């Protein structure tokens, strides 16, 4: 009864509509505006009546296009490079986070060692620290500490290979950004995966041990396949954060390692905001996480452990 009432209640539909508009509206606006000239966007009139153009996309993608668009005199945006930077950073930091995270979570759940509960709690506490707080100390450390002397053996070799001046530091490198993203996401991933590992019946691991599996085989052949849904959820979460992150990347990247979010903001200057290009780049920025999420979410199958043990 109650259910049919809610379904017929107009207020119910009103609330739903508002929520849908709130969720989809900005994306829709971005999509529409990415096909408009800046003039049309700023004039603000007749939102949906305009002549669609792909000029913004041409401009955003000028460094990867095989032809030179007429309206672009000088290709100032390096979208291709930034896109590859973003991919490298997001993918590697996601993979690293998952690999370290699942092992740490397994250890925290299954092994008995001193201070286990403290470690478990403090991993989540670390998550409470806002990234902005990390920014200044990390910037200082990455620029001035842990550097390899440019005249040293390894530092010298790196300088010879990739060029550049000064000591070899983490600042401005992919590794520097990846490292901080891993550190930032790890606590939460450990926290998520712990709850998945707890649900893996202990007798499964015991059965595997009796069947002749060593500790690593137990982990990789039995436990890991069973927590796939958890890994997928954690991967989506980590990839999204690493892909979208702006603040730390803006400080820790340099000209060659900047990511797409940084690139977008470069379209704003004190004289001009190129809304059309920003919207087009934004649309392009949204595509990889969507693909990644679609791919990863297929791994999230509920009831993975069904049939393992009775009851």
């Amino acid at each position, binding site marked *: 009864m109650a259910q049919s009432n809610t379904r017929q209640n107009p207020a119910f539909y009103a609330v739903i509509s508002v929520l849908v508009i709130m969720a989809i509206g900005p994306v829709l606006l971005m999509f529409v505006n990415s096909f408009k000239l800046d003039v049309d966007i700023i004039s603000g009139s007749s939102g949906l009546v305009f002549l669609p153009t792909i000029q913004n996309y041409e401009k955003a993608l000028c460094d990867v296009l095989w032809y030179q668009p007429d309206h672009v005199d000088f290709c100032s945006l390096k979208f291709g490079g930034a896109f590859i930077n973003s991919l490298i950073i997001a993918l590697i930091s996601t993979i690293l986070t998952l690999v370290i995270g699942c092992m740490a979570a397994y250890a925290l759940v299954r092994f008995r060692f001193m201070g286990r509960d403290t470690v478990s709690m403090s991993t989540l506490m670390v998550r409470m620290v806002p990234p902005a707080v990390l920014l200044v100390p990390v910037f200082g450390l990455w620029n001035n500490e842990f550097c390899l002397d440019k005249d040293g053996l390894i530092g010298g070799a790196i300088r010879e290979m990739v060029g550049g001046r000064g000591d070899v530091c983490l600042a401005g490198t992919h590794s520097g950004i990846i490292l901080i993203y891993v550190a930032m996401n790890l606590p939460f991933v450990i926290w998520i995966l712990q709850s998945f590992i707890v649900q893996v*019946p202990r007798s499964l691991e015991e059965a595997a041990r*009796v069947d*002749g599996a060593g500790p690593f085989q137990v982990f990789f*052949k039995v436990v890991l396949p069973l927590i796939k849904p958890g890994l997928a959820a954690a991967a989506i979460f980590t990839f999204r954060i690493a892909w979208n992150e702006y603040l730390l990347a803006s400080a820790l990247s340099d000209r060659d390692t900047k990511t797409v979010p940084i690139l977008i903001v470069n379209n704003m200057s004190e004289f001009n905001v190129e809304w059309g290009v920003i919207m087009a780049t934004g649309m392009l920025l949204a595509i990889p996480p969507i693909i990644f999420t679609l791919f990863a979410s297929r791994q999230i199958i509920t009831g993975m452990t069904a049939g393992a043990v009775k009851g």
Partner: protein
Amino acid sequence: MPKIRLENLIKRYGNVEVLHGIDLEMADNEFTVLVGPSGCGKSTTLRMIAGLEDVSEGEIYVDEKPISHLEPKDRDLAMVFQDYALYPHMNVAQNISFALRLAKRPKSEIESKVRDVAATVGLTEFLDRKPGALSGGQRQRVAMARALAKDSSMFLFDEPLSNLDAKLRGQMRAELALMSQRVQKNMIYVTHDQIEAMTLADRIVVMHGGYIQQQGTPKELFQRPVNKFVAGFLGMPPMNFLEGVIEERSNGVYVKGDGFDLRLEPEKAAGAKSHSSKEVTLGIRPSDLKYDPDVAAEDALQLDIMVSEYIGAQSVLLCQCGSAKVMVELNSDVPVSFGQSLTFAVNTNGVHLFDRQSEVAL
């Protein structure tokens, strides 16, 4: 073929000692059943043999070689778990072949082994299914097949049938008995179900409170229980216990209690007479009580019927004998009514006497 020997096996969790020095020997190809109520330490003992629990003190020998320091995988054993413990992400064939694949056996050998074992337990048509798509009985078969495929010299069973419904349990029990005859390996089987123990075992080990109470063949344990616990644990319906006092009279030795006065047969009488305490508990199995209205009073129990449970050809009657409750079996053809008093002849050979304090058999 290993001969398994447990020597003074002790298990402690922190300061709590749960197993107090288990000594046990198992001959070649013997089917040993560890039986007892929950918490008696039988599963712990099994898990220590399997290597899933550390041994606090003592040693486990297989073929006179100590194994308690070895990892489970190096102990040459297969185990069937109470909750099956099937790998849910693998299909039946992969589950069965997991141990073989870990051992890196050739592919052709694995395939033929899986086919053989699956045929043995009747799973051939389910090889592609995941455990989630199987019924309880089928999962149980997969668990057994997985153990069989490993070709170990020792099989451990941890209450493998306790999750099945009564009918399936009977069926699987028969299949297990068949399997153990065919495989001819050492089997160690843990259960709390005395029927499983009686039907499957070559040797039953009754455990209680972390001690072995008695071990021997099912017949030995049934006929000559060493104490009141073993006597009450084995047999269905359970043994009746009546408290009484031994009295020597001119025409024999009697046990007198509330509502009965039984004459002991000479062999039992000698044992009872030589015992220091005269206060005893009398144990009589329901199967040793027969309805016979014409028997002499000194060989009979007079029972007042309280409840009658009809179970087919036989009925189980719960009766009152003085202040004690007594269970008897009766042919269902005999008409009974509640409150009625019936006379049951006691098979005096089947009477057991226990010291009332120590509960040890006289």
